[in-house]
């Protein structure tokens, strides 16, 4: 599949990022950085995140009303075939504008091109659904993987890549559910598929797919962990077998899943630190938090408040100790601040709004109101 965006520019973009990093570390002089900018030019239109959001929203509005606009003329009797023809017509139009704007305006994941691609993919789904209304789930999955995988190859779009992977997992699940033995080994099948996908995408070195690769790494690590997580397996098992019990019953091979629930996050964190792989590390940290929750869910003798305090103390002590310990870099790890904070202004506002509401808000001055309730604790009192 031919790539939609100018590959040389994308490579130059990465080279420039690298050069800027080196320049920030004083390994390149300002003049050398300017030389690099001249030697490796790129002319993409990449406005900031907020303009991208605006472009995305307004392009979606434009796409939906443009389809309405077109259907006003050719809707005819509003039959199935007419609607399918309109969708195909719109899809062609969206793809035409997508390609045209990429060429003429140098768009590169700038909001508008993302929106046009999704609109085209959405328009492609309508004829499929209306001509094949009674296919099996896995057959729909195959069709949508074909479309989104092709889109990923050509446009390296993140949502299309994530969609391909998640639909692949869904397809596996649907096929496995058809066999009695399939239900029992579903967790292992999900883990094996995730591991395979992870190993394959790790081999992708192309700069064009750099972001897609990272995203699929994250997702496959997550599904690998969730496939082995005791809580997910136990509750999922009860759900799939339609057991209407107040508590999900114990599952076979429980010790295996205890081991996986504890072992996978630790392995992620360990290898993340060892290989300097931030994706493994962060996925591992989040997985570890979910493992703690899993333990708490079935075995904890404490009240939620006590658990919060203990978790909080452990996290404060651990992070403060690590910050002190890494004051000078050790074992290839450091506590140095890297990169600038692009959204520092907004961060300050959100943190402050999150931490403190003045007493007397809403005219009620009750102790514990607002100050203690929130904060991602996920518990209601």
């Amino acid at each position: 599949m031919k790539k939609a965006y100018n590959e040389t520019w994308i490579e130059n973009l990465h080279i420039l990022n690298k050069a800027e990093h080196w320049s920030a570390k004083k390994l390149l002089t300002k003049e050398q950085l300017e030389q690099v900018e001249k030697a490796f030019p790129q002319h993409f239109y990449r406005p900031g995140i907020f303009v991208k959001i605006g472009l995305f929203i307004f392009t979606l509005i434009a796409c939906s009303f443009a389809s309405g606009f077109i259907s006003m003329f050719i809707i005819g009797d509003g039959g199935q075939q007419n609607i399918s023809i309109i969708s195909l017509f719109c899809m062609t139009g969206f793809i035409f504008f997508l390609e045209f704007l990429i060429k003429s305006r140098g768009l590169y994941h700038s909001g508008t091109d993302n929106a046009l691609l999704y609109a085209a993919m959405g328009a492609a789904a309508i004829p499929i659904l209306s001509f094949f209304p009674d296919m099996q789930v896995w057959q729909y999955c195959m069709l949508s993987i074909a479309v989104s995988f092709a889109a990923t190859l050509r446009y390296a779009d993140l949502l299309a890549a994530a969609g391909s992977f998640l639909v692949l997992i869904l397809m596996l699940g649907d096929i496995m559910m058809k066999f009695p033995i399939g239900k029992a080994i579903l967790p292992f099948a999900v883990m094996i598929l995730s591991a395979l996908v992870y190993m394959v995408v790790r081999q992708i070195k192309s700069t064009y797919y750099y972001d897609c690769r990272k995203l699929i790494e994250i997702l496959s690590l997550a599904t690998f962990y969730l496939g082995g997580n005791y809580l997910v397996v136990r509750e999922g098992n009860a759900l799939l077998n339609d057991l209407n019990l107040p508590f999900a019953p114990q599952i076979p091979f429980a010790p295996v899943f205890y081991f996986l629930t504890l072992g996978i996050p630790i392995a992620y964190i360990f290898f993340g630190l060892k290989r300097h792989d931030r994706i493994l590390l962060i996925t591992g940290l989040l997985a570890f938090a979910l493992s703690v929750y899993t333990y708490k869910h079935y075995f904890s003798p404490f009240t939620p408040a006590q658990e919060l305090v203990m978790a909080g103390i452990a996290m404060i002590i651990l992070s403060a100790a690590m910050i002190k310990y890494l004051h000078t870099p050790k074992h290839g790890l450091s506590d140095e601040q890297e990169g600038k904070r692009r959204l520092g202004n907004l961060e300050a506002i959100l943190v402050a709004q999150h931490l403190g509401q003045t007493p007397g808000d809403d005219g009620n001055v009750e102790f514990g109101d607002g100050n203690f309730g929130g904060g991602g604790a996920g518990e209601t009192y």
Partner: protein
Amino acid sequence: MPALPILFHGMNTQTILKAFVDRAVISDEQASIIADYEKKKAFSLHWELRSILYLGIVLFSSGIGVIIYENIDTIGHQVIIALIAAFTAWCFYYTYKHALPYSHQKVNNPRKLADYVLLLGCTTFLILEGYLQFQYNIFGTRYGLAIIIPTLIFFFCAYRFDHKGALSLAITGLASWLGLTVAPLAVLSQNDFTDSRLLATAVILGSILCVVGWASEKKNIKPHFAFTYIFLGGNLAVLAAMTGIFSDRAEFIYMLLGLTLSAFFVQRARLTQSLIFLLMGVVYGYIIITHLIFSNIVSADASVVFGTFYFTFTSIGVVYFLLHFKKFLGIKK
């Protein structure tokens, strides 16, 4: 699949360095220095550790709050108040002791934790005050006093210790003194804009905050605070003005104000290259103008047909504007 082999060749540090040497950007020695740096550079855990610390503080304070609340009879109020007060005092003392001298400009404190401690102190001060009011009713029904005291303290801290978080807390306090919420995501859900007096207050306060932000840049007194003032104030004012437009009271004035503020945001974006203001200006302005046009069309049929035309072409127009905004706004770079 024929496409797949293309996936598996890419570039890495060596190939980039080789390209630099080939184009005579850097010398061989410099290339080897950089390669050496890349091989030996440490893996930074800065943001991970900060996030865990922050989450830990949030979890801990949520949990301890509930525990204190549940055991208030056995622990005793004085003990708790003394503990919170001592902790708050320590936070402020720590900040004060390690503070750098005041300056109109941005002050960068090299102490890693100073910012966090001040924020923590401000938060516990609020808890302390809320506790005192709940237990001993020290302010009686003078809620205004209860709010304006921390607000003043936070404004002082924000300027003295150069802390945007404290400034944002102070603005929040000032707004709630007037009965308003300024949290960006809660402006519409938490404010009772059916009260027209409150609506007017919101527009006026928001506009004043914008002016203060604009002035701090003009007068060069903490110019980096301008964003906080204008973002919080502007959002409040425009959203209130829009509610005013929709609810038909003094519609014209609110419309004028809303459009002026939208234009002001776009102008800000032009001057400071802060593109969030461009987005705000364009989205708010678009909504207000659209409302203005459609509120004058009475017939339902006509508005459906016209609406399809209108949204198709205006949204394409906005996309065109955003694709060329630098040219339109005369931004050079």
